[in-house]
């Protein structure tokens, strides 16, 4: 199955390259301030980032429904960190293969600069923390509703749209882009990607860094508070 996942990822990437090449042939040399190579690299980086995202909510809701959450509670452990590494473990080969594609294409398109890579790594860590905390936070809904498919569908659709998964956020009107700067979502995918592409200036970087750290702190304390409440509710149900 690992091989299948890798092949599907490569085909997806190949398709995105073909579609954007065609879109560029219809328009001018730039779309939303990006050239074709920027879009190709954007999708590669975007796919790489998303592989670090854990499916915490699936593990948590399944443990709530089958009662396995009790095991963590007896041991006085927070299960979220464990879920993260479970999820990472299953994606490790995909991460390696996508990292290779990322490095090769970066060298080929001329984006491979050490300072940019270091900056990208900083924002990648921020993105992982932000997304993990957000997903852990929304997964707590499982304690109340048991089935979370519909709720998660709504939340993740909005999240993936606002983080630049469907299309890069530079295609949005300026006023909308300014609003996005204050929301946590663009720091989950779009911002690390454009940082690597060199589309951000120093003030944007500092502002982005501060805002994302602020969101991480907010999500962390919110999660701590709601997790305690959720566990109490779970124990109240006989868990």
């Amino acid at each position, binding site marked *: *199955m690992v*091989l*299948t996942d890798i*092949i*599907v990822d490569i*085909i*997806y990437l190949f*398709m*995105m390259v*073909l*579609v954007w090449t*065609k*879109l560029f042939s*219809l*328009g001018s040399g730039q*779309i*939303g301030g990006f050239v074709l190579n920027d879009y190709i690299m954007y999708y590669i980086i975007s796919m790489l980032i998303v592989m670090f995202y854990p499916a915490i909510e699936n593990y948590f809701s399944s443990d709530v429904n089958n009662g396995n959450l009790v095991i963590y509670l007896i041991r006085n452990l927070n299960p979220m960190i464990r879920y993260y590494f479970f999820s990472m473990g299953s994606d490790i080969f995909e991460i390696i293969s996508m990292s290779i594609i990322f490095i090769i294409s970066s060298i080929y398109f001329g984006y491979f600069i050490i300072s940019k890579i270091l900056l990208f790594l900083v924002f990648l860590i921020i993105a992982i923390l932000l997304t993990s905390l957000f997903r852990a936070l929304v997964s707590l809904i499982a304690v109340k*509703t*048991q*089935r*979370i*498919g*519909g*709720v998660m*569908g*709504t939340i993740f*659709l*909005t999240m993936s*749209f606002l983080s630049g998964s*469907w*299309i890069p956020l530079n*295609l*949005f009107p300026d006023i909308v882009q300014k609003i996005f700067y204050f929301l946590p979502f663009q720091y989950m995918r779009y911002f690390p990607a454009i940082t690597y592409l060199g589309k951000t200036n120093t003030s944007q970087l500092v502002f982005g860094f501060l805002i994302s750290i602020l969101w991480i702190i907010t999500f962390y304390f919110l999660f701590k508070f709601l997790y305690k409440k959720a566990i109490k509710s779970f124990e109240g149900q006989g868990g």
Partner: protein
Amino acid sequence: MFEKFKHYSKFAIIRIKISLQNSMEFKFDFIASIFAEIIYMILTYFIATLFINAIPNFGLTAIQLFIYTQTLVIIFTIQNATKSQIMDSIKDGTLNLDLIRPINIIYQSFWNSFGTKTIIIQILKFIFIIGYILIFSNINIGLYILLTIVVTIISTIFANAIFYLLRSYDLKKIQAGSFFHRITNEGNISNYITTYPIYLLPKFMLVYSSFFSLYYIANTTLDVIYSANITNIVLLLGAEIVLTIIFMYFANLAWKKMLKYYEGFGG
């Protein structure tokens, strides 16, 4: 013959009822799923507008692109809501129980995994799109409704035929069926076709995708929305029906062969 028909229809009705009961047990989730679809439609419309603004020579208007992508998503989702996880039934042994029943195994598998909740939501969405077309667009509504229903039925049979043909290899307890299914299903245009019009694909991809139902769904929908070219639509439907029959024949053949193998090993 009548007795057999009665038996088969009863089986389908019972399965739909069970599926509906399971969905309705979690009403909050059902409502949330409808809400997710509403959000999805709003976002898709927004993206369609952005695309058209960014690329003036796109070929479609924002309204046309929105109707196109939404129609495709409806058909594609219904198509997928009927595909079973045969590998799971082999693992947990429920396939053996299904084989004892005097009903065709593919038919059983189809209804066992019939996603009633998903299909109801997609029908609600279809009604919304019809209303949207009536208010905002000059698309031939009669032709649109008729063809969407016809294409959905044919494509569901088509996609299931390919699905069962490939998944028959699961009966050999090898992952080949699952591998081929993912490569052909996800590796073809399904992921992109719901966002970008099919004509953006290069020629070799169009040739490759013409072996899959999505190619016909996309082109027929595009024809209804863009030009209403009846000759084209009839040709596309004809080709899809012929391919469906061919795949059905081979799927049936493969299942019979693989079932013999499976039973030979005590399955």
